[in-house]
């Protein structure tokens, strides 16, 4: 019998037709955006979008809620900033060093966290992240309360000067698109299908002969790596690495971004991070009330809007986004 994909024909091996269209729209918007809005804000948005994509890879496709993703994001940011400033590494190597930090930390934390399931997993990841927050507070290289400031952006291949915001923007855009395609590739690979099987029914996946622990650990490491890439890039964008990025509030922020955009959707984390960051900027003047508003958004999303913006849109249009 011929297999018919209920969600429409696949185009160019890129997920579904709707996802290809979505990707095209995304690229066009991001190329045009710096000529309309403030590029530094957009760059930060892209870093957080990449961070949320990494987080969503775990929660949306494996069903593992990591409540400590700031660990990989923040520490990658520290290492990238330190590499660029104190070792004088060029930007690409600094970002690679940061990304690798995410990978290594993800391997250690992931190996510990997957030993327990469900709700314990979230608590373990949160506790480990908090531990590394205290470490960041104490060790000298992070600069403690001051952080690592005035990080040089440097030159790519010794030619492109990233001190220029427009150049930097397109540099970040390339990283973002590469990260997005990487995550997309994982989700739509046979490996990704096994991850979804684990999410739906882990005992059954085990009975089918999959070593689910290995798959979960691999997914965790990949997610931490992409989170590291996001954090390292952010360090060069804002030219500072600070404690803010390793706090539990940061871990909460990325959960919120993904939830608002749509758990388990391809574009949700991107939309969610743009929405939440815009809100944080627009409402910066009301101070601590932002915390209250974020709390209210959490409550409303969980009770009434579990699909998120993109998930709801996809549901209404009966497409996959």
């Amino acid at each position: 019998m011929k297999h018919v994909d209920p969600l429409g024909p696949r185009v160019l091996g890129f997920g579904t037709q709707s996802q290809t269209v979505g990707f095209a729209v995304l690229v066009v918007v991001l190329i045009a955006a710096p000529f309309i809005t403030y590029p530094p804000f957009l760059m930060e948005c892209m870093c957080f979008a990449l961070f949320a994509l990494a987080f969503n890879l775990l929660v949306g496709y494996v069903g593992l809620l990591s409540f400590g993703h700031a660990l990989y994001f923040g520490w990658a940011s520290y290492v990238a900033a330190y590499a660029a400033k104190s070792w004088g590494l060029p930007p690409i190597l600094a970002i690679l060093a940061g990304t690798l930090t995410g990978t290594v930390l993800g391997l250690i934390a992931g190996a510990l966290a997957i030993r327990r399931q469900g709700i314990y997993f979230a608590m373990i990841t949160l506790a480990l992240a908090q531990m590394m927050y205290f470490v960041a507070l104490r060790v000298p290289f992070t600069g403690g309360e001051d952080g690592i400031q005035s990080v040089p952006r440097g030159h790519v291949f010794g030619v492109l000067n990233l001190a220029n915001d427009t150049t930097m923007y397109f540099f970040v855009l390339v990283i973002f698109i590469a990260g997005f395609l990487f995550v997309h590739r994982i989700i739509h690979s046979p490996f990704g299908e096994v991850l979804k099987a684990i999410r739906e029914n882990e005992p059954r996946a085990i009975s089918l002969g999959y070593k689910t622990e290995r798959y979960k650990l691999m997914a965790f490491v990949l997610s931490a790596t992409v989170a590291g890439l996001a954090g390292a890039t952010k360090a060069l964008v804002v030219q500072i690495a600070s404690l803010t990025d390793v706090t539990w509030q940061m871990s909460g922020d990325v959960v919120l971004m993904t939830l608002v955009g749509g758990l388990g959707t391809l574009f949700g984390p991107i939309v969610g991070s743009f929405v939440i960051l815009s809100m944080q900027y627009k409402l910066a003047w009301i101070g601590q009330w932002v915390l209250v508003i974020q709390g209210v958004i959490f409550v409303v999303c969980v009770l009434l809007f579990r699909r998120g913006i993109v998930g709801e849109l996809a549901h209404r249009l009966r497409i996959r986004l």
Partner: protein
Amino acid sequence: MHTIFGVPTMALFGQLLIGLINGSFYALLSLGLAVIFGMLNIINFAHGAQYMLGAVAAYLLLNYTGIGYWPALIIVPIVIGAIGILIERTFLQWLYKLDHLYGLLLTFGLALIIEGVSRNYLGTAGLPYNLPDSLRGGHNLGFMFLPNYRAWVIGVSLVVCFGTWFAIERTRLGAYLRAATENPTLVRAFGINVPRMITLTYGFGVALAAFAGVMAAPIYNVSPNMGSELIIVVFAVVVIGGMGSILGAILSGFGLGIVEGLTKVFYPEASSTVIFVVMAIVLLVRPAGLFGRGT
């Protein structure tokens, strides 16, 4: 002066005492978390915020109405517990059929709301709460000085913890509770109002957190951040102890408080991380937790 392993005994016992005090709070809070988790299948992220709310309520009562420590110890848990019941009825009851993670996310949102509102009105600096006169002063035990209030906190926490353990493990009501945890449908078939039990359990857990908050007010400064800092440590305690056993939660709470106190004596740099390190070791050696049943 006496020394043990090169540390003056005074300092050693002083830190042990602080460890026991911290342990009292770990035990009270992890106990509440375990009781709530048992019935609701929800990890109450707002537990820290509710503990903070207890301390804040005691502070407000004292400074705006003149109601002192002793009445607050009764009033505050009842009021905050009632708020907890309201929270369960309005928000949590819709989540029981959903994935675990939504309960965590919703209570996380509640924690943000409570903390944000408190920060707006109280600022982030700590506010001092004066000790009641009846608990001032202390005794010199020869090897150390024991302030009365600290002795009181440890004593009361022990009584409350073991009282809760007794109520759950040794009484008829507790038997219903345990049965409803195992199989709510069957218990309902016996004519027991399980939804009401769930509501009251949450109210009790929240009241316990508020009670701990009132007790903490004279020791730590009352500040909107006090809950979120503590709750993450309590999560680690819960991971170490496993939530399957009430006694396990109490023992690991006190035990880890002592471990933390000792670390402050022998290797102060690690005192803020030691509980997390213990958690990592336990996960490696006994993944199910010290008192856990399965995962």
